[in-house]
C-alpha cells in the first residue's frame, strides 16, 4: 500500500514536470536568459507555498499520516561546498537542460539520449564519492 502511494506521488510529479515544461531544455535556457517569468513563477510559487507548509508543520508539530513526528534534518554548516557544488550543478543543469527529477520524466516521454545523461550523472555521483575526502567542504 505504501509503495503504491509512492508510485502515485511519482506519477503526479512526472506529469507536473512534463506538462509545466519544467522538463524542457528550452525552458531552462529561457530562464537563464531572463526572458520569461514561467520558470520563476513555478519555483517561486512552489517555494512560497512550501514555506507556509513547512512553517505550519513545525509550529503546530504536525504528525505524519502514520502518527510519527516529522523531522526535517538541517544541512551541515558550510559555504564552500554549497557554493562550489552549486556552481558545478548549475553548469550541468544549463548544459543538459535537466535536473535529477525531470531526467526520469524524460525517459518516460521517450527521449532515448537522456539515458546517456542519467548514466553520466551516476558516474558523476560516483566520482564525488571517490573524491569526497579530498574536496573542500
Amino acid at each position, binding site marked *: 500500500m505504501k509503495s503504491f502511494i509512492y508510485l502515485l506521488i511519482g506519477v503526479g510529479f512526472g506529469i507536473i514536470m512534463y506538462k509545466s515544461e519544467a522538463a524542457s531544455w528550452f525552458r531552462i535556457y529561457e530562464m537563464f*536568459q531572463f526572458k520569461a517569468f514561467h520558470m520563476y513563477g513555478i519555483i517561486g510559487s*512552489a*517555494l512560497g*507555498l512550501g514555506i507556509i507548509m513547512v512553517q505550519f508543520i513545525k509550529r503546530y508539530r504536525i504528525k505524519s499520516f502514520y502518527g510519527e513526528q516529522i523531522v*526535517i534534518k538541517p544541512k551541515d554548516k558550510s559555504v564552500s561546498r554549497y557554493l562550489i557544488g552549486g556552481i*558545478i550543478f548549475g553548469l550541468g543543469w544549463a548544459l543538459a537542460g535537466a535536473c535529477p527529477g525531470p531526467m*526520469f520524466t524524460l525517459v518516460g516521454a521517450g527521449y532515448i539520449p537522456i539515458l546517456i*545523461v542519467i548514466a553520466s*550523472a551516476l558516474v558523476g555521483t560516483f566520482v564525488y*564519492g571517490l573524491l569526497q575526502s579530498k574536496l573542500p567542504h
Partner: protein
Amino acid sequence: MIALERTNNYSMEIIFEPWPWYIAGPLIALIMFILLMVGKKFSMSSNLTTICTMCGADKKVIFFKFDWKAQRWNLIVILGAIIGGFIGSHFLSNDTSVAIHPEVIDNLRNLGFNSAGKSYLPTELYGINALTNTKSLIILIIGGLLVGFGARYAGGCTSGHAISGLSNLQRPSLIAVIGFFIGGLLMVHLLFPLIF
C-alpha cells in the same frame, strides 16, 4: 445540459495545453507536502547515490556504504516519474512544442538550434540522431557528469535545495541555489557561444 458539456470540454482542453506556472508551482508544493506527511522528503538526486550503491559502489567507496533498501521508496517515486512522463507526453498533450519567448527562439537559431520553438527538447541534443553525433554525445555526457557530481557536492539538487531546503529557510540551501544560478548563467552566457 449543452452548456455543461461545453464547460467540460473546455476544462478538458486546458489539461492538454501546457500547464501555467500558477498551477504547476502549487502542485509541486503539494508533492513536497505529501512526501513530508508520509514521513519522507523531496529529494531527487539522492536516487543517484542509491543507484550507485545498488550497483556495488559500496564495495569500493565508503561514501556509498548505507542500506540502500531504506531508500527503496524514493526509487519507486522516480519509477512513478517515468510513468508520469509517459502519461504526460502520450495522453495529456496535443502539441508538445514549447512556446518560448520569440527572442529566445532567435538566439537559439543563431546558435544552431533549429528546433527551437518547434519541439519539446532540442532535436540537436535529444533526437535519436544525437546518439551518432560525437559533439552531441560529449555535451550530454559532460552535462550529466556535472549534474551528478555537483548535486552530491552541494548535498542536493533543485528539489532538495531550491524547493524543500528553501521552504525550511535553510541558509545552506540559499547558498546552493545562488550557486546553481551562477553556474547556469556562466554556462548560457559565457560558455554556450564557445560550445555552439
